[in-house]
């Protein structure tokens, strides 16, 4: 199973302000930058509990009928009608083997801590990072501590009229 990350960060590497706010992102996600095309390639999402709870506050459920596995050791808040959400728990290797056993071939891993845990475990194969032209000064970082260097292979970088720059990397196995 392949796992990918598709996320926006400030130039200083934050995915949200310290209080979780994403008001610094361009409204509505900014100009189209490949999210729809990316999401069409994934069979399911794996998100952390915090991300799940943040998404619940959005006006509309963003994942349609795509299966979402929310990682939590506790019962989840109810998802809106139409959403396909299942709770899962365990370390990243266990999650990957459970998802693989269910025939999932490409998963989108989202949420700061969840991304960091999967990266640490060597279970992310693709990083697609969209840089927003702003420094926010402090906040929740995309990347965290690692036990070792993680070498990447640059695949492509695209830039958009609004100043978004999207770089795609394969994580060296």
């Amino acid at each position, binding site marked *: 199973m392949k796992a990918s990350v598709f996320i926006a960060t400030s*130039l200083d590497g934050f995915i949200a302000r310290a209080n979780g706010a994403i008001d610094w992102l361009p409204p509505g996600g900014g100009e189209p930058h490949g999210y729809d095309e990316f999401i069409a390639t994934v069979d399911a999402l794996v998100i952390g509990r915090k991300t799940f709870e943040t998404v619940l506050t959005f006006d509309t459920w963003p994942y349609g009928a795509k299966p979402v596995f929310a990682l939590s050791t506790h019962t989840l808040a109810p998802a809106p009608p139409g959403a396909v959400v299942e709770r899962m728990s365990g370390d990243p290797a266990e999650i990957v083997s459970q998802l693989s056993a269910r025939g999932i071939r490409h998963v989108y891993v989202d949420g700061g801590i969840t991304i960091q845990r999967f990266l640490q475990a060597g279970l992310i194969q693709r990083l697609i990072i969209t840089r927003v032209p702003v*420094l926010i*000064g402090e906040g929740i970082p995309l990347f965290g501590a690692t*036990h070792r260097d993680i070498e990447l292979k640059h695949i*492509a970088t695209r830039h958009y009229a609004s100043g978004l720059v999207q770089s795609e990397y394969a994580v060296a196995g």
Partner: protein
Amino acid sequence: MRKVVYSLTNSLDNFIARTDGGYDWILMGDEVMSEFPKIYASFDTILIGRKTYDQTLLQSPETGQETAGFMEMKTYVFSRTMKESPNAGVKIISDNAGEFVRSLKNESGKDIWLFGGGILAASLLRERLVDEISVAIQPILLGSGIPLFPDIGMQVDLQMLECKTYKNGIVGLKYLVKH
């Protein structure tokens, strides 16, 4: 007015050096090196924090000898603790960094290279004295180290000016700081 450009290379997780100052992970390559003469020619003055100066500039990589200034540019080291200049090519700025840089920008000359480290860059960003940020992003995650942008504590809006990719995986981005 002369521009202050924060120009350097960093890991994808925004570190400019390992915790011990090490920069063994930095890729260069001929394609990147071939741009250096043009970059160097745009500057005649360099601003460096004391820690970065200690870690990167005390010795020539070839001879191990102490160097006089950095690449024959006017070199200013920002330090509250250094009392005497370590050599004739280096001037110490011990207080009012912002005021000093503001007056430097009004002098005639080429652009000013803000070489780092992050602490000096953050303080000059807070004072709205940085005009451009130019990063060369290396295809690696270090997990820990000396941060590129430590605790600026405020939002700084940018405009993307240039985006360039190199065969060895480095992504060069240049931004204008909106004042």
